[in-house]
């Protein structure tokens, strides 16, 4: 397990997915469920296909590992989205803005696969004693309101 700095941010492809309302599609997993890693860190992690990123609360998420020259050593990038936000911490330094950038996390090689958006939302939020209540009250991943659903 390696200490590393996490930056999140937008990419134009991730932007096109979310602006098009396609958040519950495979495209979202493809464009937001990966992690850019510097080649030196990539080697140090053991040339992973997948990595697990864990924050100080113990929340963790599995994303695809990508070896890129765009990152510095000791710093990784995950596009803005539900995968990154599992580990983004809610401390705002009294500004209201959470720590989307420059967040100390731990990273390690792991097995896949990356959870799809509906699966990730369910495993992150529909659990514990209140799971049955959520099922009856929340919309979750139903499709009853969409065009063509009668």
């Amino acid at each position, binding site marked *: 397990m390696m200490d590393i700095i996490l930056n999140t941010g937008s990419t134009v492809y991730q932007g096109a997915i979310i602006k098009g309302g396609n958040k519950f599609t495979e495209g979202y997993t493809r464009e937001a469920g990966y992690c850019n890693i510097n080649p030196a860190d990539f080697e140090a992690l053991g040339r992973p296909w997948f990595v697990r990123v864990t924050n100080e609360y113990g929340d963790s998420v599995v994303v695809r590992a990508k070896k890129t020259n765009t990152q510095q050593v000791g710093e990784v990038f995950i596009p803005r989205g539900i995968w990154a936000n599992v580990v983004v911490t809610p401390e705002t330094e*009294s500004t209201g803005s959470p720590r989307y950038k420059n967040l100390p996390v731990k990273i390690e090689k792991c097995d896949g696969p990356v959870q799809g958006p509906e699966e990730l939302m369910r495993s992150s939020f529909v659990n514990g004693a209140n799971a049955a209540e959520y099922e009856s009250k*929340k919309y979750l991943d139903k499709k009853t309101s969409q065009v063509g659903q009668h």
Partner: protein
Amino acid sequence: MISNVVKQDLVKEDQGIIKCTDVTCPVCGMSCDDIEIELNPTTVTTKNACLMGDAKFQELRSSHRLVHPIVNGERVAWQEALEAAADILVKAKRPFFFMGSETSNEAMAVGIEIAEYLGGLVDGNATICHGPTVMAIQDAGQVGCTLGECRNRSDLAIYWGCNPADSHPRHMSRHSMYNRGFFVEQGYQGRKMVVVDPRRSPTAAQADLHVQLLPGKDYELLDAVMVALRGQELNPDTEKVTGVSQDTIKKMAEMIKECKFGVIWVGLGIASTHGKHHNASIAMRLTQLANTYSKFVILANRGHCNVAGFNQVLSWTAGFPFAVDYSRGVPRYQPGEYSCVDALKRGEVDAMLVMCADLGGHLPKKAVERMMDIPVVSLEIAPGPQAFVSDVILPGVLDGMECEGTFYRMDNVPIYARSFTKPPFDFTESNEDTLKQLLKIVKEKKPRK
């Protein structure tokens, strides 16, 4: 509604095909107003729109559009959904009203009115976006200008902690780098570009000078640039602390002194990292210092369309730009206490109205966990994380396409967005209309004492 004047001039309808020019894009903070649309019964064709803008316009004909009101996962009649939403808000002790972006100022004003009526908290997308930059404006003061001035005058663009190639795809071609301007006739050959970013982003790859600082060292680097600008000696540890050599810092200071009109574009790279508003604040002080040598301005690359509008609307209604609490009958402002993430994290919010924002997808996990525990009413157009956490869904209307409205651009210039079609349902005309209907029911359920 479709204004008749606009329809005569710009909207042409022929055999079911609607053609419209000069459409305002409701996606990013640039609010590009030169989009051309051809809308036929099954497809949408856009001209001039970027990848993100085109994706949003495709929503007009998407198969996943949410078009039916929903309560607890079941389709219900519109009035029933409004009643359920009003019940949730009226019964709450500490309701939270989140005014998202990509909708009109007119809709936000009604949302804020409901918050004031019920004594709730109100916040908007600015809080998780450039809220710290807005706090810095209050702290240090902004030397600003319009995007038009940047387009026609700027010969130096410093992109600090932003990556417009990804976040604002037409930024550099329309306003800041590659276009020809009145005083910059050579276009990109007459302009210089500096990118300050720890990543080698697609924007940095195009820069004349890429300053690759260590993550989270923006404040220290901005301070060092100010020292270099004043001609003072830099601390020997500067390179060790910031990751940037003294020569690079001095070169940047020289570029600032030599330009005729410079612009610092700040992004979330300074607002979301450690230091927050202090980073934005010192960037504004650097801009003020740079005016000693040449004309210099600073502008925030606002991510969402009309996120600046929320700050404007709340400022003229409550006197504060975001994070306002009406629980005592008068507006009180306290980022970190009344702001969305903090109020959710502490668990004090017991109901939420979310208009046109995907908080389920963009807030940290700890905040979304609270949203699962409380009733949430959403104005939403597509399935996704926000619909996932919602108890009541009121189908949203696409402002700037299906209804008219005012958007504030990232430089705080208001733009009136025209419509060229109508919503795919008849129970509401706009998000403003939806909230007005909701406010009426809220007032019936809880008359003012």
